[in-house]
């Protein structure tokens, strides 16, 4: 890849401090170009959320990063101390969380939660931050933005809260937005609108994004590029169209086949065949053997 | 599927014993209480002097580490020349008697009412809850002073007063515990098996609220020691020829500038005893509560 890179992860490995140091990430590398949406896909436990948390410097205490580098722009994040990382992240990286119902502080008004970052990092006055927040709410097609600003989170529906969170994520014009399964907690009918909205906002603000999901159907709708993980190891990566239409790895093929599509209705879920799982396990065991040996 | 078995049944006993011993709060608190019990029981053998023996020639002697001390009086003497250590040792008898008897009395009354209110909703619960609320509207110390003033001083009166004012502590906690347990699957299962209400209350629910009750009991004993000290301090507890920590504190306060140790020694005893009962209760709660076990 010769394109300019916004974020690159190089050889990232992590182990669990419990479970006798079981590997969680195995030599993961990936790159996100400016303005592209990069999908991180895998089943639960595949390590996709750990990668997202590692970029944010917020891995759980039980997870220890053993080697690798995370480079945002020209800065290596893992070598920064907490204070430096905070400053950098505050202005340049934003998060669209998984559950809009718990990601807004129940006892603060929407206005306060949308403007605090602007005032902290961008030197906005209360008035200009408010105007900026109203513009953003307008961009996410929120009706009655003035009223919404005065609301407490419990007065808004789940879909409205997710719009607020998306608007807030783009408030500081971050270089990178990390979307952590942002549609999983939502109603299916709302999901599609939210995906479109994230795509539109990302395009308008020319922001790079990492989109964490377990759903290849969602990937097909929104991602430019995909990294597919299994048990902390990259199985396959590439452009979304290539990966979905011409999968090379057996695991990818099985996953693609298991994903329901409107043009190919299936009766119930198709599980990934045991043989494929066994092959993946063997591949990972071989990798672990090579690195430990 | 609800399991038709009470949670406390069929558990091996030895792991519980081991857990009891591994808990440092339990060891320290329990150890001190045990020491106190031994001191109280064998007070006449342990105490170096008669706690009532006055010797005005040897009044206000300092404790052994200060200049002018008499090695015969390790913790010094008070203004009447009585041996502080011996009075402290004999004082533990009143303190422990009150702690145990008043604690058990308050615990029995309060737990019974709490069990009833928690299991039988309707007027029983309303009546007990209202009674608790009325009781909570009294300043406890003032009420106990009032009761002792009405009934006259004496260890028995002090015990009655503590039971009368402190049953609510148990009633509130046990009521909430009982309510939570009454909703549990094992009670529902026992009910469908056709057990009577009293059987369920005392054979199924009581064993499950017991850990909380025992812990509360230990803490209440500490509180009873303090209330007894308060009543002695005000001059209402027991007759003046029985040494108590509270009366020692009260008389020590009169000569605090001349002989601070007369005041400090019984205060230290109360402090350590309350802390020990508290730690014992806390340790028991952790050790016995199936949810808090690690």
């Amino acid at each position, binding site marked *: 890849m010769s394109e300019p890179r916004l974020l690159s992860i190089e050889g990232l490995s992590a182990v669990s401090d419990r479970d006798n140091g079981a590997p969680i990430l195995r030599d993961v590398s990936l790159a996100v170009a400016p303005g592209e949406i990069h999908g991180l896909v895998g089943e639960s436990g595949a390590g996709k959320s750990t990668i997202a948390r590692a970029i*944010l410097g*917020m891995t759980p*205490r039980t997870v220890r990063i053993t080697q690798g580098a995370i480079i945002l722009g020209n800065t290596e994040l893992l070598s920064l101390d907490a204070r430096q990382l*905070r*400053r*950098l*992240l*505050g*202005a340049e*990286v*934003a*998060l669209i*969380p998984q559950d809009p119902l*718990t*990601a807004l*502080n*129940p*006892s603060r008004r929407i206005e306060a*939660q949308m403007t*605090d970052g602007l005032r902290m*990092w961008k030197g906005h006055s209360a008035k200009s931050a408010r105007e900026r927040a109203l513009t953003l709410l307008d961009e996410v097609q929120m009706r009655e933005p003035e009223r919404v600003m005065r609301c*407490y989170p*419990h*007065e808004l529906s789940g879909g409205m809260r997710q719009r607020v969170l998306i608007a807030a994520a783009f408030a500081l014009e971050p270089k990178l937005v990390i979307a952590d399964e942002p549609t999983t907690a939502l109603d299916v009918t709302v999901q599609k609108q939210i995906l479109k909205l994230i795509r539109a906002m990302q395009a308008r603000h020319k922001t790079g994004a990492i989109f964490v999901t377990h759903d290849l159907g969602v990937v097909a709708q929104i991602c430019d590029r995909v990294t597919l993980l299994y048990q902390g190891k990259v199985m396959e990566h590439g452009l979304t169209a290539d990966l979905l239409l011409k999968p090379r790895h057996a695991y990818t093929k099985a996953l693609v086949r298991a994903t329901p599509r409107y043009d190919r209705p299936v009766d119930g879920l198709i599980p990934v065949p045991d043989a494929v799982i066994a092959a993946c396990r063997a591949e990972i065991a071989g990798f672990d053997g090579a690195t430990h040996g | 599927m609800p399991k038709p078995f009470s949670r406390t049944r069929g558990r091996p006993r030895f792991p519980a014993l081991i857990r009891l011993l591994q808990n440092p709060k339990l060891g320290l608190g329990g150890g001190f209480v045990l020491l106190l019990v031994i001191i109280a029981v064998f007070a006449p053998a342990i105490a170096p002097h008669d706690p009532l023996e006055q010797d005005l020639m040897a009044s206000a002697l300092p404790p052994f580490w200060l200049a002018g001390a008499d090695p015969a009086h390790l913790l010094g003497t008070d203004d009447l020349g009585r041996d502080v250590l011996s009075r402290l040792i004999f004082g533990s008898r009143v303190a422990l008697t009150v702690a145990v008897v008043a604690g058990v009395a308050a615990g029995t009354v309060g737990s019974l009412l709490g069990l009833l209110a928690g299991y039988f909703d309707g007027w029983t619960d309303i009546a007990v809850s209202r*009674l608790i*609320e*009325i009781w*909570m*509207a*009294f*300043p406890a*110390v*003032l*009420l106990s*002073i*009032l*009761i002792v*003033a*009405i*009934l*006259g001083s004496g260890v028995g009166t002090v015990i009655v007063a503590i039971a009368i004012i402190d049953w609510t502590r148990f009633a509130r906690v046990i009521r909430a515990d009982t309510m939570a347990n009454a909703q549990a699957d094992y009670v529902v299962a026992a009910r469908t098996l056709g057990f009577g209400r009293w059987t369920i209350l005392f054979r199924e629910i009581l064993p499950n609220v017991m850990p909380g009750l025992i812990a509360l009991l230990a803490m209440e004993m*500490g*509180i009873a020691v*303090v209330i007894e*000290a*308060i009543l002695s*301090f*005000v*001059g209402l507890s027991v007759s003046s020829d029985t040494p108590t920590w509270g009366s020692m*504190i009260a008389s020590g306060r009169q000569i*605090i*500038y001349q002989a*601070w140790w007369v*005041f*400090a020694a019984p*205060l230290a005893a109360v*402090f350590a005893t309350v*802390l020990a009962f*508290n730690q014992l209760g*806390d340790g028991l709660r952790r050790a016995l509560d199936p949810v808090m076990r690690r």
Partner: protein
Amino acid sequence: MIAGAAHRAAMMAVTLFGVALVVFVLLRVAPGDPIAMMIGPGASPADIVALRAHYGLDGSLPMQFAVWLGAMLHGDFGTSISLRRDVVALIGERLPATLELAFCALGVALVLGIALAVIGTLGKRRAGEAVVDGATGLLLAIPDFVWALLLVLLFGVAVPLFPMSGRVDPSLGAQFHTPFYLLEALVTGQGAAVRDAAAHLVMPVLALALPLAAIIARVLKGALDEAMVQDYVLLARVKGFSELRIVTREALRNAIGPTLALTGVQFTFLLGGTVIVERIFSFPGLGNMAIEGVINRDLPLIQGIVLTFGFLFILTNLVVDLTVVGLNPKLRHG
């Protein structure tokens, strides 16, 4: 919400009636006859009957209770037997001192408790947390009476920093026009009087505040621990806010509600604790007067003070309920 308030007020009346009944029963079964104690040796039986009638001590017990309750409801608490003055006036003089003491203690407990909880949360899994947990455990285990005596030993004898008794130093010659000495001195800007009144408050306030501070710290820290793993805290971290700001501006708002509710209930225990603490520090408040009343078997005074405390306790619970509703945005708009 209005229906809720009405219901609470009705419950409050029932509880107050219960308190009055208990006070009445307690004092009427008292074996010591207050009249016999009051009169001199030369009094005639007619004098005793007259006195009984004067204090409403004649007639059947239910009759006495009805008369007594009626008088209470009219604000007539009778005349103190030992002090020979109107009980309401006596309470009016002493209550402000107790309130000043109790509210200062509440303030100190809140500041100390919240500070301990925040420090413990910031020092999560480090020495800070262990120190705070240990300190709260110790403060919690030891009741106000014992703290008061330890403070006497520490600040009265070992390092005599603060006065051991009273409310103000009479030699200072400060003149007060209201019974709220500290408040008045603050409002009128009398520096010396403020310092003196505050110095007299230090030990009793600390004795009352330390256990409450520990309860506040423990409950609040539990609630903060819960709040700090919520997603909105994660989001605030991504926004790059400092941990201190996250704890105070994000988590504290959500954690403080239940803590304040509990603090309110505990405040009634603190008020109860003023009785013995006032006694220890010869603080001229309601509790000290109550103990005098008990020792002198001063029935009207005792019942007046006990009822005043009961009313304060019930009122506190009512205020707490309403505050909790007011603080929670969900309940407020619901």
